[in-house]
């Protein structure tokens, strides 16, 4: 019989986190793993609310209370099965989702101060442990339909789509320009948050399930879109957003100013041994501009590269920043200094970066998304010295030019039009082409991209009358 007072009697306890001294020496994940007892004890803290706020807040609407109960009951494989019924990459989401803003933030136990259930870590535990114990998705009952779908992009959206397709007897063939699957999961997210072995294992599993990957293959360059349209019954595009947002202030082009993504990708490629070229912060005074998770990734990667100092500046206050609080905390622990309410107005320097000029802000009325607008306070300009500046203002869609050739419409903000509530979910203006993830929504969370990929797969299945 479950203990109804577990939430009161047992505190929220995440797995052990490596000490700062140890963790900044390398790129390994900083969190440990639950053991079965620890996972059970933490899962049992769930109240099984009448309104499952966690599930409601979760973009893929994971059946969180249900799998928490299964873990509490020791039924790991059923938990893994249930977890996979709504999510293609639960072990990834367990690691990289900003749970404190989503499920755990919504958890009933969070607000009164009991500490939310450790949903993210249990999610990670379920899949990691079940896979380690030999559990695999059961596709034995799947009947092949003979249909084939090309999936462009092996990121979260593409994988989500391929997963659902293959489980329904449709053969997905996934194309990606990089040598590894995962897209930004592999290249954009530093390995101290998501170790690269995780995606490796996942690739093996996907291949066992029957997903075919064509890596190092860029559509439009190595293979023609028309060829895909000819050879496959449908095409799904999940190509992400790769244009960097700019600050629009002077000095952004100075040497020593880098966009976040190339910096992160180059570092990953070095860690993976794919390339030795890397933007390196060793010994440098680094200023990171931005307050999202990408900014935190830059901060912490810089620390690990041995930066002399890392300062992160954001134009609102801590309460109004978009990134995960957990990541801010980790960054701070690792030695990152934060400057809140600072809006960069210029990157100063001759021929190369010497510093960043900020103006202090005050917060005004909330905008349409509920976040308070920063308003510059006159006469507060200051210059923070820097050797390198990393800009992490986010991403914009960068639709490939060939879309127009195939009658795929995009909107005024360069997003592919593929509505979730169309006749077939996520169908584009070309009936045979579907799309999802960041290239449709604009830059967003990993988990939303997974969700859209899965939803698009449903649309494709309906379209193919499977």
């Amino acid at each position: 019989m479950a203990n109804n007072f577990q939430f009161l009697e047992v505190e929220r306890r995440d797995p052990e986190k490596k000490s700062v001294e140890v963790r900044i020496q390398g790129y390994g994940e900083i969190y440990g793993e639950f053991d079965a007892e620890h996972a059970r004890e933490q899962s049992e803290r769930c109240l099984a609310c009448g309104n499952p706020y966690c599930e409601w807040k979760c973009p893929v609407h994971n059946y969180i209370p249900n799998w928490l109960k299964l873990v509490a009951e020791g039924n790991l494989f059923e938990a893994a099965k249930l977890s996979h019924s709504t999510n293609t990459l639960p072990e990834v989401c367990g690691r990289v989702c900003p749970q404190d803003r989503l499920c755990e933030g919504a958890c009933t136990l969070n607000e009164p101060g009991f500490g939310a259930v450790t949903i993210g870590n249990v999610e990670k535990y379920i899949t990691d442990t079940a896979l380690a114990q030999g559990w695999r998705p059961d596709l034995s009952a799947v009947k092949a339909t003979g249909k084939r779908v090309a999936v462009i992009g092996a990121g979260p959206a593409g994988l989500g789509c391929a997963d659902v397709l293959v489980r329904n007897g449709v053969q997905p063939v996934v194309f990606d320009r990089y040598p590894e699957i995962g897209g930004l999961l592999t290249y954009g997210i530093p390995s101290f948050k998501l170790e690269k072995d995780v995606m490796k294992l996942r690739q093996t599993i996907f291949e066992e399930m029957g997903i075919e990957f064509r890596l190092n293959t860029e559509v439009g360059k190595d293979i023609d879109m028309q060829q895909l349209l000819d050879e496959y019954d449908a095409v799904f595009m999940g190509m992400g957003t790769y244009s960097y947002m700019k600050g629009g202030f002077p000095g952004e082009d100075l040497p020593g100013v880098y966009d976040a993504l190339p910096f992160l990708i180059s570092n990953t490629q070095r860690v993976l041994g794919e390339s030795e070229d890397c933007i390196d912060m060793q010994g440098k005074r680094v200023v990171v501009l931005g307050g999202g998770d990408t900014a935190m990734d830059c901060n912490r990667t810089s620390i690990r590269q041995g930066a002399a100092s890392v300062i992160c500046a954001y134009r609102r206050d801590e309460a109004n920043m978009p990134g995960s609080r957990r990541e801010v905390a980790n960054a701070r622990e690792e030695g990152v200094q934060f400057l809140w309410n600072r809006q960069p107005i210029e990157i100063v320097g001759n021929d190369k970066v010497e510093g960043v000029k900020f103006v202090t802000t005050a917060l005004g009325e909330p905008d349409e998304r509920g976040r308070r607008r920063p308003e510059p306070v006159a006469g507060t300009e200051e210059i923070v010295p820097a050797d390198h500046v990393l800009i992490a203002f986010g991403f914009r869609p960068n639709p490939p030019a060939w879309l127009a050739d195939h009658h795929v419409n995009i909107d005024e903000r360069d997003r592919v039009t593929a509505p979730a509530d169309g006749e077939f979910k996520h169908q584009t203006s070309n009936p045979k082409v579907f799309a999802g993830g960041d290239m449709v929504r604009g830059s967003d969370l990993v988990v939303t991209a997974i969700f859209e990929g899965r939803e698009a797969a449903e649309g494709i299945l309906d379209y193919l009358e499977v």
Partner: protein
Amino acid sequence: MPGVIKCLTAKLAGRYVSYSDKVKSGIYRPEFEKENCGFGLIAHMDGKPSHWLLDTAIGALARLTHRGAVAADGKSGDGCGLLLGKPDAFLQAAAGELGFKLKASYAVGMVFLNTDSALADAARTTLETELRAEGLDVQGWRTVPTDNSACGKEALTSLPVIEQIFVNAADDMDTVAFERHLYIARRRTEKALEPDDEMFYIPSLSSKVISYKGLVMPEYLPVFYKDLGNQALATNLAVFHQRFSTNTWPQWCLAQPFRYLAHNGEINTVQGNRNWSVARGHKFETDAIPMDDVRPLVSMSGSDSNSMDNMLEALLAGGMDIFRAMRLLIPPAWQNVENMDPDLRAFYEYNSMHMEPWDGPAGVVLTDGRYAACTVDRNGLRPARWVMTKDRHITLASEIGVYEYAPEDVIAKGRLKPGQMFAADTETGQLLLPEDIDYLLKARQPYKKWMAEHSRHLESKLEQSHLTGSMSNEQIGIYQKMFQVTYEEREEIIRVLGESGQEAIGSMGDDTPFPVLSRQVRSPYDNFRQQFAQVTNPPIDPIREQIVMSLETCLGRERNMFEETPEHAARLLVDSPILSPVKFQQLLELGRHESDYDTATISLNYARGTDLQAAISDIANKAAVAIQNGKVVLVLSDRDISEDTYPVHALFATGAVHHHLVREGLRCDANIIVETATARDPHHCAVLLGYGATCIYPYLAYECLHDMVRSNMIEHDNVTDLEGNFRKGINKGLYKITSKMGISTIASYRGSQLFEIIGMHQDVVDLCFTGTTNRVSGIRFSDFEADQKQLCKLAWNPRKKIAQGGLLKYIHGGEDHAYNPDVVNSMQEAVKSGDYNKWKVYTDLVNTRQPLNLRDLLKLREDTTAIGIEDVEPMEEIVKRFDSAAMSLGALSPEAHQTLAEAMNRLGARSNSGEGGEDPERYGTIRRSKIKQVASGRFGVTPAYLRSAEVMQIKIAQGAKPGEGGQLPGHKVNELIAKHRYCNTGVSLISPPPHHDIYSIEDLAQLIFDLKQVNPDGLVSVKLVSEAGVGTIAAGVAKAYADLITVSGYDGGTGASPLTSVKYAGGAWELGLSETHQILRANNLRGKVRLQTDGGLKTGLDVIKAAILGAESFGFGTGPMIAMGCKYLRICHLNNCATGVATQNNILRSKYYSGEVEAVMNYFRFIAEDVRQLLAGIGARSLTEIIGRTDLLEALDGYTGKQQSLDLSALLSDAGVAADAPQFCMQPFNEPFDKGELAEQMVRDTLASIENQSGGEFSYVVRNINRSIGARLSGEIAARHGNLGMADNPITLKLTGTAGQSFGVWNAGGLNMYLEGDANDYVGKGMTGGQLVIRPPRGSLFKSHETTIIGNTCLYGATGGKLYAAGLAGERFGVRNSGCHTVVEGIGDHGCEYMTGGLVTVLGKTGINFGAAMTGGFAYIYDEDNSFIDSINQDVDIYRIMPEHMEAYRNHLRKVIEDFVKETGSERGQFILDNFSDRIGKFWLVKPKAAELNSLMDDLKRRAA
């Protein structure tokens, strides 16, 4: 009493405009009508006629006036009447005057003729013709002299022409034959006339009895019928009756007694009984009667009592004797009574095989001219007390003391116990006591031998589970999708049943839409709302009174009941209608070998291309053909699904087959076994049984259990155990569902159709659920067909998974929930911040949601002229109409309870204490609850508590679980809770399903009177739950003098209850409120009561709509809880509420509760502000202006096909009531007819002594019409000095005579009453102090310990004081006592039930089921013949007091008896004291299992301190 509008099935309206015609556009249905009453009989044992007897009967009726309903003119009642032994001399003389020549054997018929003379002539001719056709000699007609001035206005509008017909028997005819010919002639006449003449009715046509009845008050009966005033009219027996109908529109023909009987109570199963009478009509064969001429045997409309009378008459006409016939109709409980005489048991078992009981509360008095008899139902829910005097008269009535007799003339007095029958034989002068009748019955035939030789049981041997679990993963997936098993249902319903053998518990009600409103595919079972008993009949506690419950089911063909042969016993019995795999296989096996059980399996899967309706009809036809071909067991199976077929839902098939077979006269030759995937919870099973299924084989539920074991969802190695648990849980659920309607046996429940259908098209109802209430139309066959096709598509598509669920909890993509996370979060943000703009976010979410309640399809009209908001009444006026719904301290934490109270008080609104008392420190402060609840547990209900109230609310039912009791688990009962509830910490506290003092409407009237006596300034409110017929109940409640009535919806409700109760019981308030408003207006009662609604009210728009539908006051439960921080977790029953709102856990309360008075106030202010804006929009200056203004609403079309199929026009109807009839309450109080003059006299006499606390002694004579004696004084005492403040200087009343009901109710410390005489029901109810002493009159001849001196349900909810009664007490003595010390000389059944404290000493016999659910206090029982051990319930332990270590108890007992003897002079007590050393060995000490033996005495002392 469902059904009253017409005695006859007339379709053509005569001149008389029936009530049903008046209100037919509204939402009321005539079959909702209910009635209760007072009744009795008087007979001369030796058959000596007298006019005195007639006068005494009429006088007795008048002394039961408080049990009937009275109109303001004092003349119009709901009807009364007399059934007399034929007054031969008087009739002879009357005939002589008219020149009739009567033979020795003659009959007189009392006939109501139409006021249209042509119709009357036709009726006379027809009757004469038919009588002559039977060989009888019609002498002529006599106009019965009447005086219309005795009638009230309503009575006159329907007054028939009243005549008598005189008929001679044929020469060679004996009495039996004569009666039979009269019956045949009457039936033929009725059948000929009924279609055209609505007024024609024959109250009696007999050579033995004659009926005088009508719509007048008892004292006017001899004025109206001049015959009755004529001294020459002498009779030897009279059965009398006074009616309390829930409606005021009267019917002459429905006045009682009927032709044989008068009935006090309600036949809950009447619809089923009627259907079965049609089905079984073809089984009744006798050479004596041409059966086709008399069928149908039973009227399908009219009152239940009328139908039962018809049935009794048919049985007697067929040659059955009156005792067997009556015991067949209303048998006692026998299935679980372990110590019943085996021969008697065999009699009942044998007879039960061919007829189901007419189940429900019943006291029946009857006569066939020779016997005057009375019988009461198995639960003893109606009182019957009798007195026999020296002059050989026996009188029996609902109350003792209904006529004056000298104490020394009384030979014996007594009462009928549950299930007993007694009779006076006026031919032999013999009094037949219950044992005598039992002996007669069991000795008729060798029943035991017949049963042993011929009956068989379907029994489980060593069950193996391999019979199920045959499905592969893939198959079970298909079945689950086809029949909508979700992950949620597997986990929350099926698994819980399988693992624990009981239903899962849930909290916070149901906030999902009805299927007709839903955008999801929903099960047809969800359209059915369980009916439940409220007010006019009580629910039963199926756990603590298990002894009356039975699920036994009988298979095989029925036989002709007019014969008794050994072969009648040859039937197959099974313990429960839910079959295990083994039993199902056994049954099929039997069918292969024995023709008596020859089986036909009919597939419910039909070929694609056929339409659903045709498929259902086809199945019904196949069933009929199979039976005609000799099949007996029909298996309706949905098992053979295929991709080429669609399944007919088992419920449609079952109902259609059942009704088709009934109509074809084949039903009693067949058993319907439903092998179905659709039945998976108790409700599913109950609906199938309610529409005629004999047994159910729920194979998919078993398969799911297997599957869960396979996948380790359930860790268990024996699936057979899980299947067994599953059945156990379903069985418990069935008990709960039947008991909630007051029904004890599944045999009676089967086919009784006790549901309201919400949202189905009439075509569906007519084909499958004929006769079920269905008021707003809805889902069509085509919609159901489309739904099923969608499910089929899903089922056979391997890529679709089973659905996650969403009916219980909110799940993305699942069913809509009114309190979904967005709604909860946005509301909390708004009320915490006090920001009205944020509130608008919340109201937008709610007001523009997809339709989820019926009101969402009603829209305010837009063509009204707006006024300025400044012209609308202020917020302060509006909030006065708001109450918080009852939530007890116990359910809520003290912090939350007080937050709510303070918020309401600061607003000028009212909070409701809920059940569970209140800290006296809160009385009179800002933290008090102005509404004090009186619920079935009566926890903490004392005179001071009641005096602290502005409103005293009687909770009849609550939305989350109408018809059920409650339980506060022991872990929630801490020091604080225990103190206010007068009980011990850590023990579970049980609120019974019924109020044990409300088994009928006149009982409710009594409780209301009790409350008004103790607190004359307070208002009395009655809380009902919406269901079909709630309006008529409300009308009855208004006539019982309630000041306020609340009609709750199903969707409110914060209490914990089984999930099937949460989901399937209780109706929408929109329906209940409209019905109530319409019916109150139609009956001219709306101006007398305030009407409130509650249930999921969320915004000002909800309030406006409720006002327009008729409410002037509004209750809120969940809303303010959420405003206090509740997150709608639905875990209230676990005590672990993380928000500290619904928990008693100290840490959660002190550290995590964050509710603010201001937030709650914001909630109500915002709603009031919404209301103001909406009022301004429609141009109204106040809420009052729009109450009942249904013209301000219009019905929307709806957004889905199903929604568009609804017809809500009845909600918006004025029900044909004049526009100037009041729309809201126009008077401050609803003043009772009974002014309580004696009580007022007592106040005048004693008030000075009370004010001065000086005490004193006063003397009065009391009669049974003096009710609630003492309560007025206790109220005055408690108001000034608290519950016990005057105990040291008491007022002493010396009384003689028979006290009316509720003697000493709510007695306060400082009032001692000594009564020499006897008393009726409810003595010492709710007493908290003082002393009540009752002893027989001096000079009495009877032995006190063999004579009943006080009635039923004494000391219910008492918290202190002492009661001594030198005589026997009735049933349920000491029920829920928590502090009174009492001594009596014997008690009835169910003694000390739910007792939580106090001391009960019984110096004589106790009835069965002693101490059920007793958790505190203890008892001493004197057990002279060592039979007590058979009487105890398993909840108690018993100990001898003899042993050495019990010395303290021995001494204590002696002192207790000494005090008793000192006060009463009891001979019994003295005898025991005189022989104490040899009598002490006969005593038992009884303690609850929940208490320790060595703590009993300490507890007693501690509580006394």
